[in-house]
């Protein structure tokens, strides 16, 4: 590691003892990055920034929130009405959750399109899936805290998933609740977890970055970095590109916060939790809908639960299910189409998840549509991915990133 040489004696003094400047230089300033990253590569840093926004707004909300079933709903409304800028903190936090998932989903689909999970980045991908899992747990428990009808019944339904396991199921559920239904102990512990898990999330994100910085970013061509000419320093090129992307994203985010703050929410959750009445139509938050559709696709309690967990966990083994040596979909004509079909299938699963199983689409019940889409979801991973790698005729890969960038530059000049 080349140590920082600074003319500032204080900087030098600190760096000799604790090389933070050297560290920053290596990992942010001069960090070598492929020259050809496109805007899809913005979403990683965006996710990090939203995580920070969620942490800060969450910490300040927690200073006014009361995790008790009797007063939780009122304390949230008090934050919005009486706490100075409480409405801003709350709406940043609630909309921030949706933004976080939008960004992370794009980040994940980008990884799938460009084969970012393939060797030598398998662990990087798996750590990412872990981040996603922790996010889901955190988001779920956060949604319970306002203690509206959707909070309560969402908590009831999701925790009951665990009752599907034979013999121990009921004990697990009682253990999670701390009682015989979702009640005072449940909201209290969910609040603690909701506050704790993001700290864990931060640590896992650090590990994610650590793994990233070993082999550096993948790139749209999906080819390895060969010479220093393929790279350029992260700063100023990608700092400015990320900041510009951040600016655009903040416009999108702030529109919802200030002008449509309840867009992603359910009106039902403004009705205080009532253990005696289940709302006529309960749905999870939009980011869980595809998995909700998978859950309901099989008419077996344990089967549905296992299938739903499998739907998430299968992502862990994706690097080994994909047998193709070529990373980027740009050079895999069939996979490219399969990818988009898979993407649409995920959206479709979300659509199915929103509707009641008996709703009709083109004359067929959602239940059956759900079964078809679920089957395709798993077929994509278990059948298409392994086979495609064996039979697909890929396009010839370019020689180097540098060459491709130069080509583009010359094309622009003409």
């Amino acid at each position, binding site marked *: 590691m080349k140590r*920082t040489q*600074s*003319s*500032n004696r204080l*900087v030098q003094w600190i760096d000799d003892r604790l090389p933070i*400047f050297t560290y920053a*230089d290596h990992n942010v*300033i*001069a960090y070598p990055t492929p020259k050809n990253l496109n805007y899809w590569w913005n979403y990683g840093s965006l996710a990090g920034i939203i995580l920070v926004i969620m942490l*800060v*707004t969450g910490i*300040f909300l927690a*200073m*006014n929130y009361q995790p008790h079933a009797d007063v939780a709903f009122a304390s949230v409304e*008090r934050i919005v*009405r*009486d*706490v*100075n*800028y*409480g409405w*801003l*903190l709350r709406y940043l936090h609630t909309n921030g959750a949706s933004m976080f998932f939008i960004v992370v989903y794009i980040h994940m689909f980008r990884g799938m399109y460009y084969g970012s999970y393939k060797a030598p980045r398998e662990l990087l991908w798996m750590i990412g899936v872990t981040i996603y899992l922790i996010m889901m747990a955190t988001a779920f428990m956060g949604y319970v805290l306002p203690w509206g009808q959707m909070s309560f019944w969402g908590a009831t339904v999701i925790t009951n998933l665990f009752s599907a396991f034979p013999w121990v199921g009921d004990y697990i559920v009682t253990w999670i609740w701390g009682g015989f239904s979702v009640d005072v102990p449940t909201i209290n512990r969910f609040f603690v977890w909701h506050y704790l898990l993001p700290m864990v999330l931060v640590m896992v994100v650090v590990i994610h970055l650590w793994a990233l910085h070993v082999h550096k970013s993948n790139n749209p061509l999906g080819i390895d970095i060969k010479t220093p000419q393929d790279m350029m*320093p992260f*700063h*100023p090129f990608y700092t400015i590109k990320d*900041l510009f992307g951040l600016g655009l994203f903040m416009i999108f985010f702030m529109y919802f916060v200030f002008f449509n703050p309840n867009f992603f929410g359910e009106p039902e959750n403004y009705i205080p939790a009532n253990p005696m009445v289940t709302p006529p139509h309960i749905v999870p938050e939009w980011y869980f809908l595809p998995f909700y559709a998978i859950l309901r696709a099989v008419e077996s309690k344990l089967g549905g639960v296992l299938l739903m967990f499998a739907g998430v966990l299968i992502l862990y083994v994706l690097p080994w299910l994909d047998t193709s040596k070529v990373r980027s979909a740009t050079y895999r004509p069939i996979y490219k189409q399969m990818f988009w079909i898979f993407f649409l299938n995920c959206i479709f699963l979300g659509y199915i998840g929103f509707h009641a199983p008996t709703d009709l689409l083109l004359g067929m019940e959602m239940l059956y549509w759900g079964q078809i889409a679920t089957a395709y979801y798993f077929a994509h991973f278990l059948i298409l991915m392994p086979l495609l790698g064996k039979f697909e005729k890929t396009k010839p890969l370019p020689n180097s990133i540098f060459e491709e960038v130069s080509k583009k530059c010359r094309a622009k000049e003409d």
Partner: protein
Amino acid sequence: MTDNPTNTAEGVDAPRRDFLLISTTTLGVAGVAMAAWPFIHSINPAKDVLALASTEVDLSAIEEGMAITVLWRGKPVFIRHRTAEEIKAAEDVDVADLRDPQSDADRVQKPQWLVAIGVCTHLGCIPAGQAIGDVKGEYDGWYCPCHGSHYDTSGRIRKGPAPFNLPIPPYTFTEESMIVIG
């Protein structure tokens, strides 16, 4: 840090780039700084806390020479029904000699009623002197047990480390012997 490649092109197009860079950075930093305010302000007293600011007290039951303590905004308020002697002691003090000069007339609305916030201006303990048999200090008012501040019958600091007199809360007489604090 100084020789990082940010400055690569500096020699050629410096002036224009500098202007853009400096103004963008300034605008961005200013925005982040302003965004801090809602967070800082959010932990100031909320609107409902500010609104809960008045306490009504009936004084008719307090006999001469007795005192009661009531809670206002989470702090004790001393209300003492002063005897003629105590009033005289408070009025006879030469204001110029006091650490925190204030005449007794400025501190009471009706001479027999002293209403003061019972929190020592030194470090926030509650001075003794309300109950019968309490140590009232050298000036027969209040004595703070934490660090030995003595207050007189007008609640003024006379001896000890406290810098100021016991503060007087805003209050009004709604009836002959009824006050609203706050």
